[in-house]
């Protein structure tokens, strides 16, 4: 090995970001999955998204921040991430993927790192750049997204020991799985709401009867 792989857990995400192809293999070989680091990254994902909404410079900020609402940001980051993990796990266990839930969670979080770093740079740059200097910001944004997508494909491929086409198919179907999961969640929520309303109306009805 050219590199010393006995590094502290927090260095691993940066290592895999710098080595998109063999990085996750090394991670798998060393069994260096660290849930704490992963959770910190997911939390950072949330924080960066909040910062992106609020702190992006006026010239580049197209978000509706007249009324700041944290719930959609929370949903679109943390809940989305765990839906991705659950969706991917439930799909890939059926299609002989080797990854465990924890492993999927960790590698997916690690794959987000380049996106987060470029987002921070973009937020800072958006406060000092003019409109006609937007090329840098656009480049950074795409660069981060492409890098993270490449890492994500590599991560899923390694953690399940898939071939590349199978990985891409898995990712596409994971998105479908996420949609189904979210749909069922919404359905369940409205169902429980109905049950609650039903119970509550029985309660009020009874109260009227007895108070007569």
């Amino acid at each position, binding site marked *: 090995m050219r590199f010393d792989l006995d590094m502290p857990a927090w260095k691993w995400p940066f290592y895999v970001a710098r080595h998109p192809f063999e990085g996750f293999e090394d991670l798998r070989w060393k069994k260096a999955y660290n849930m704490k680091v992963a959770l910190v990254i997911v939390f950072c994902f949330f924080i960066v998204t909040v910062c992106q909404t609020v702190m992006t410079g*006026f*010239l580049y900020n197209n978000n*509706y921040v*007249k009324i700041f609402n944290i719930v959609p940001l929370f949903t679109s980051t943390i809940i989305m991430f765990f839906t991705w993990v659950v969706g991917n796990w439930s799909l890939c266990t059926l299609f002989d993927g080797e990854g465990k839930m924890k492993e999927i969670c960790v590698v997916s979080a690690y794959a987000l790192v380049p996106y987060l770093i470029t987002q921070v740079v973009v937020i800072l740059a958006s406060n000092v750049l003019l409109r006609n200097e937007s090329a840098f910001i656009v480049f950074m944004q795409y660069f981060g997204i492409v890098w993270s997508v490449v890492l994500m494909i590599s991560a899923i491929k390694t953690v399940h020991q898939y071939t590349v086409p199978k990985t891409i198919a898995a990712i596409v179907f994971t998105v479908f799985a996420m949609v189904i999961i979210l749909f069922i969640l919404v359905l369940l929520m409205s169902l429980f709401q109905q049950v609650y309303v039903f119970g509550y109306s029985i309660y009020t009805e009874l109260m009227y009867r007895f108070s007569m």
Partner: protein
Amino acid sequence: MPTKKKILGAAAASLMAVTMLTTSIVADEPYEGYQYDWWGDPVPSQTGYMVDRVVDGIDLGEGTRYNSNEQLQAISDQVGETVEKVTDVGAMLDPMDLFIDTETEKLYIVDSGNDRIIITDTDLSPNVTIMDYFYNPETGQYETLNGPRGIFVFHDSDAEDQNEETKIYIADYENGRVLAVYEDGTIFQQYTKPSSEFYDDEVTFQPNKVVVDVAGNVYVNIKSITDGAVMFAPDGTFSSYYGANRVEQTAQAIANKFWKTILDREAAQNFIQNVPMEFSNFDIDKEGFIYTVTESKSATTDVFKKLNPAGENVFIKLGYSELIFGDMATYYYQNANYGSRISDVDVDEDGVIRLLDYRNGRIFEYTDECDLLFIYGGTGNQKGLFNTPSAVEAYQNIVYVLDQRKSSITTFKRTEFGDIVHEAMDLYTDGKYEEARGPWNEVLARDSNYWFAYIGLGNAEMSQGNYETAMDYFYMNSRGGYNRAFKQFRMQFVRDNFNWFIIIIVAVIVVIVALKMVYKKLKKKKAGGTQ
């Protein structure tokens, strides 16, 4: 002490009563003024216009036919009943268009249901002329209109005698022609369906509106044609189509484009063709630019455009074609769409643009740079509200709105607030930012929601070199202004703090180099220690 408190309380109560009284006096408009903020949300605002008068046909009293007595005799013989010189104007029926001739201060009303043109003046005084019989010198007969819908008056300075100077063009809808008459009602030209290979024989020719440019070219708006206005040369020959809308980029349109690239030409011909929305009304300004509006439930492309003589939309280059005209949001209520449907446009002598939304009965007033100034009007039966407004015209700060169903003209006059805004705006468009500062501050004192005042003040600060204050004014009001101010501010900041930048950069480099050296030494020591 208690007496003092009592006095204070009484004073406060009387003050409140007075303010309530005054507000009830001031707010007598049946509509509420509003503006749109940076986010596109409606916010309350001062009204710029208030209702002045409502005039219907009966209020106009008696009208005089413009025909001479000999002509009237001939008309009576032709019609078979006596046609009087003086008649009651009576109620109008479905009036469709208004036109103000700024040179003679005459107001032309197209009384479509009664097949006549009513001419009064801009004060709507009961000094009325009626045009309903037109002499055709070719046949020697008198002709009538049938459901006219549009009118345009054009002054030809090259004309030989005074009568021929004023040319009146009437879009005679049911008769399928545009009638061009002199002031005395003599027909000198008829623009009918062109027998050109470019004009499809199956397409009807029913003129809806008409506009004439300085060169005497006649532009006819026809609802069944999507290629733009039909343009006639002054001699009455068909020259071309003018200023078509672009095709709306819907999913359907994109899919069709995709199929067209794959299929060969013949197969593509049989495919559904993408057809743009036809525009529904237009107006021409002093400089010869033609403004068109498209009235459609769903269309968002080219709702309002400004065409140069070549028929190109100059708003595209300026980025204004991306703007939303009329109300920002469309909403549905009981299966009906209440989005704005812009059915008329008027550009007045100062270049102020007024768009008429016939769905919600509102008038949207814009500057010539498409900045929203005021919104007024509404639907209802009260004075100042409309049922089916069909036309808007403005002359010398008075706005005339014609209601087709109510058969009346409503005039609006500018409020004090409107006057201040327009005063500030005039200074602003002349580039006198500093002089406009006073009026803009006055505007903000009356209405702090009035966003354009912040842009005006921002520009005033810019011209003084106070870029940071200018940035504060432009923030959440104008991205372009903020960009300009920020550019200057950043340049100044870098110039002022250049030494600090150099010091920080050098310090960072020194620290990095020092840390590297220390790190290397430590590593060597470690390596030496283990061996």
